[in-house]
């Protein structure tokens, strides 16, 4: 026992921000130079958008313990709000539209978070479906939201920040990366603050939290607001940086489930977990299609791909829930510790 402790203390202790800083240096300095447009368009942009959405949902579900199936609705609200702010307010900078879009998503989040004051768990999850169906319905029904486009499809505006155009794949990647970095950093600060500890307290024991004087109702609504803000901004990235043209149907219940799966697979109540989960969700179908095509050739068409993707993903979720409820993050940490330990003892 003592030997183990001393082993760990003798490892070179790096400050805990070392890895994030190195990752960011790589993402900003090296990836734009070596990445292909396929890498940006098909992998990194959806990864960033879904990862951020996962961070948002993790604050609500992983930390504050309020299950939500309405994530895609908040993404849609963010995307369409940003589109309309950008369209209708002359001279509003892009960042302004994005922040306002986040605030709109947060307001809708608070509204649909109200049932959480009375409902818990499964019942709350079902009530958040109301957000999912209502937002999608409203965006389809009222063509004002899509500037009277016949199909409900909106086209993203040109991306530029203070005259600096970011329309290419690399530009959009850097745009998304910057927003995701800033919001993720703030989310990390949040979950380690007193407010974040209040979230966990309410998740772990609501009665005890109330009795020791944590303002439970206020804190729950705050969790909905912050979570929806982040998911709304993720929706903007999804629409403006990744797809460039979106319709309400793109933000359906499947998308909500996808984000929920991201945090379950990646790890509940973990900021890193959202990105682990998003990476798996984005890369997995691509890898599966390559692998299927390689092994089975023409038999592996898009129908089979879709089917096998669902089957494998479903199996993965069941496996994770049973074998590793703490997700990829726990798996990663344990593997790293073992490797470190093996390396130490050689």
């Amino acid at each position: 026992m003592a030997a183990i402790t001393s082993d760990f203390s003798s490892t070179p202790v790096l400050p805990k921000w070392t890895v994030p800083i190195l990752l960011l240096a790589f993402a900003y300095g090296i990836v734009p130079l070596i990445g292909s447009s396929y890498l940006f368009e098909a992998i990194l942009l959806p990864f960033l958008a879904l990862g951020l959405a996962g961070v948002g949902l993790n604050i609500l579900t992983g930390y504050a313990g309020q299950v939500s199936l309405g994530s895609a609705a908040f993404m849609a609200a963010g995307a369409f709000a940003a589109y309309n702010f950008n369209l209708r307010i002359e001279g509003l900078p892009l960042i302004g539209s994005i922040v306002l879009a986040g605030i709109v998503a947060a307001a809708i989040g608070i509204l649909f978070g109200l049932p959480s004051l009375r409902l818990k768990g499964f019942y709350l999850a079902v009530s958040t479906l109301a957000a999912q169906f209502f937002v999608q319905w409203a965006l389809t029904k009222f063509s004002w939201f899509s500037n009277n486009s016949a199909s409900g499809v909106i086209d993203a505006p040109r991306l530029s920040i203070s005259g600096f155009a970011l329309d290419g794949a690399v530009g959009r990647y850097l745009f998304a990366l910057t927003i995701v970095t800033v919001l993720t950093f703030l989310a990390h600060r949040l979950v380690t603050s007193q407010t974040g500890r209040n979230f966990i307290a309410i998740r772990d024991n609501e009665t005890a939290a109330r009795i020791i004087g944590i303002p439970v109702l206020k804190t729950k609504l705050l969790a909905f607001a912050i979570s929806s803000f982040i998911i709304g901004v993720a929706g903007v990235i999804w629409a403006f940086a990744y797809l460039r043209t979106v319709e309400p149907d793109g933000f359906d219940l499947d998308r909500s489930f996808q984000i929920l799966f991201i945090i379950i697979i990646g790890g509940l109540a973990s900021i890193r977990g959202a990105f682990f989960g998003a990476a798996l969700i984005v890369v997995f179908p691509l890898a599966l299609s390559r692998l299927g095509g390689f092994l089975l050739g023409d038999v592996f068409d898009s129908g089979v791909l879709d089917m096998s993707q669902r089957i494998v993903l479903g199996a993965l979720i069941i496996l994770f829930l049973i074998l590793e409820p703490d997700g990829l993050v726990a798996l990663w940490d344990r593997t790293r510790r073992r490797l470190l330990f093996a390396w130490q003892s050689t």
Partner: protein
Amino acid sequence: MPLPSYALGVMEASVYAPEVFAHGLPSALQPAQPSEGYAEPAGAAANAASPLLSLQGIGLSFGGVVALADIDLSVRPGEIRAIIGPNGAGKSSLINVISGVYRPDRGHVLLDGTSYAQVPTQRLAHLGVARTFQNLALFKGLSVLDNVASGLAYKVRSNFAGQVLGIGRSRGEQRETRNRADQILDFLDLRAVRDRLAGTLPYGLQKRVELARALAAQPRLLLLDEPMAGMTAGEKSEMADFIRAARDRFATTVVLIEHDVGVVMGLSDRIAVLDYGRKIADATPDEVRNDQRVIDAYLGVASDDEDGAGI
């Protein structure tokens, strides 16, 4: 003794004001006090020191089952008061009424002279009341330190934006909360497990962390619902020492429920005995031990075992 006197100072200022208030003003001005019910507290007034907690005619029933019937109780400041009784006697119901988890059908709870039909749970910490639970109610996903620090969450005045950006009063608050929690950890000898997740600790330690969380708020009234349930004899006497030390150090009034009569006899200043939702005795440990009704209802016939050691 580096423990903070500043917090107590602040609290006492707000504590004794309402007491004066309660005695000096006509009952009509007191919140939640129906005027016709106020002729009662002759019993309370007979007590020399004005009680910190007093229950008047508390009645509570679930469906047709009477959990508590006409309970009066008066606890003086600084007292350690035990409530004992057989299973189902209504002990936990009583604690839940005092902490506002249950709303009594009849009667009032007076905290520091202010009368409540239902104690407002959300305001409980501000009123200087903290409690622990029969079944552990720790926040499993938080470290021991953060659990204890959460006992001070009710005082936090900075908002989330200030905390995220590290501006305004949030920094000072965070530091002060940490310091206070660390002092409580030292006091209860929990320093070694400071950074462990609470859910990973053995049961006895979790019980102690829960006591630490309650003490962090430096409550005037501490309600302990079976603080020693499921502990070994050694752990029990250790816990009893901690409870006594907490009372001495923080001048906290303690109301506790416990099954181990031996421990209770040694720890408490006074003991109230419940049976079938009624109070059948309320006296010093020696008097209770020799009370025939208590022996019949709870202690059993054990005349050769009067010190309760074998129980």
